[in-house]
Each structure stands twice: as structure tokens, then as C-alpha cells.
């Protein structure tokens, strides 16, 4: 049985190391204590699965805004045209914990309507 305990310990250690190396898009990778809003024209729009994203300018840098899966965007009433390049939108969400210029959006304001993305 001791060998299994050892394998388990090594496995857990490996998972801990791996998870600290690379961040993906789960909410846990974003700092919920630093709510932020970016408003401006869309520079790049990727309406794509597994999640749509935008690029917008903020504080002199290009920020990637992670939205939601396409089906969720549609069912919440967001239209592709409203997220097109050049459209002025407002996104509110949380910045990447490790300082990447990336935000996970809690909601996006399109033509005056807040659309929840969670």
C-alpha cells in the first residue's frame, strides 16, 4: 500500500506544479477582487467556440476579453453584429491573476443592455 501512497503524493504534487504553470480560462484564474470595466471600440472580434473573445484597447495595451460560448451568447441575446469590429461596447469583468492583459467578462453592455455571460 505504501507504493500507492507514494504514487498519489507524486501525482498530487505534479498536478499542483502543472496548475501553477499554465492558466486557462476558468473563473479561478481571474481576480474577482479587481472588478474592471473597459469601454471603447472593438479592435478584433472572434465569435468562436469554445468561447468568443474580443480585443480592446485599455491603458495603452491591447486587452483580450474572454466572453462566453457562442450558444450562450446567442441565448442571452447578444448578436454577432453588436460585437463587430468598430462597435463601441462596454465589458465588465476581472483581470488575469498573473498579470496577462486578459479579462474574463462578467457582463457586456451592448446598445444599453447588460448581457450576463456567466
Amino acid at each position, binding site marked *: 500500500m505504501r507504493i*500507492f501512497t507514494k*504514487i498519489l503524493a507524486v501525482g498530487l504534487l*505534479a498536478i499542483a506544479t*502543472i496548475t501553477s504553470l*499554465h492558466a*486557462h480560462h476558468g473563473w479561478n*484564474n481571474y481576480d474577482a477582487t479587481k472588478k474592471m470595466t473597459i469601454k471603447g471600440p472593438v479592435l478584433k472580434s472572434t465569435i468562436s467556440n469554445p468561447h468568443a473573445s474580443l480585443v480592446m484597447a485599455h491603458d495603452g495595451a491591447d486587452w483580450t476579453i474572454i466572453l462566453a*460560448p457562442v*450558444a450562450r451568447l446567442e441565448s442571452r441575446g447578444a448578436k454577432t453584429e453588436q460585437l463587430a469590429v468598430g462597435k463601441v461596447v462596454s465589458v465588465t469583468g476581472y483581470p488575469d491573476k498573473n498579470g496577462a492583459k486578459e479579462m474574463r467578462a462578467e457582463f457586456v453592455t451592448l446598445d444599453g443592455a447588460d448581457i450576463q455571460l456567466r
Partner: protein
Amino acid sequence: MPMAFLSAAFDFATVMGAIEQWPLTQAMKSSTYLYPFINAGHILSLMVFFAAVAVMDLRLLGGLKTLAPGPTIRDARRIAIAAFVVIAATGGLMFLAEAAELSSNWVFLSKLALIGFALLNVVALEFAFARSISAAGPNDDLPALVRVSAALSLLLWLSIAMFGRFIAYF
């Protein structure tokens, strides 16, 4: 010249760029419902797969004792292989939608490595113990190494499922 061609063919950015252009990749990304349904298909086939794997491994470990190990494994393995084909196909389709990102994702690469290890475990078991497994009857115990391999199999496949789920979060 052939070397230059080879290095271009295996250049990461070139390969990712080519995958990006595939119609299938575009469909996975732009279709509203394809990705979620393929994703669901991946999980459903995974459930069938693990059910078959669990029956085989539990018998080898000493549970489900009244079953004869040989026929049990032969029958369950067919189901496992069919389900694995569906898992690999749906997984491959989801990979297309995020090929570049996943190729540098440590959780995803670890998952692939674990799958390789789990498949090696099957091959090793088959090579070393196929005869003793088919010779065993109902209520017979199997050699200790067979039981180790079965325990490892359960541990590996469950870890692989966990790593798969973790791709979305880490």
C-alpha cells in the same frame, strides 16, 4: 531541399496555421451547437468506456468474482474499443478548435501522456498475462501483477478524466 521541406512541414506555426484553415476546424469554431454537442458526445462515450473498463479491472482485481475473466474481458473490451474510438474522434474535433492553445497547455499534454501510459499498460497486460487470464475461471484469483495493472488502469483512466476536466480551468 527535402530537409527544408520537412522542417517547414513540422514547423509549429505552419502546422497550426494549416489546421486553422481546415473546414472542420472552422465548423467547430463557428457553428453554434456543434462544439457543445461534440463535447457532450465526448463525455457520454467516456461513460460507456469507463463502465467497460471498470468491469474488466474489477474482475481482475477480484471483484465480480463469479465472472470468468477471459470471456468477460473479451466482451467488455469490444465495448471499450468502440467507445474509445468515439472519445478519440470527439476529442480530436474539440482539439481542432483550440489547437495552438492546447499544444502548449501542460494539463492537456499531461493528459495525452497519461493516455499513452494507460494504453501501454493494456498492451503490457495483454502481452504478459493474456494466457493466465484466459486460463482462469469463475472465482479464480489472478496473479498479483495482474491486479497491480488493473488498479493502475482504474487510477490512470480516472486521472485522465480529471485532467480532461481541468483543461478548462488551469
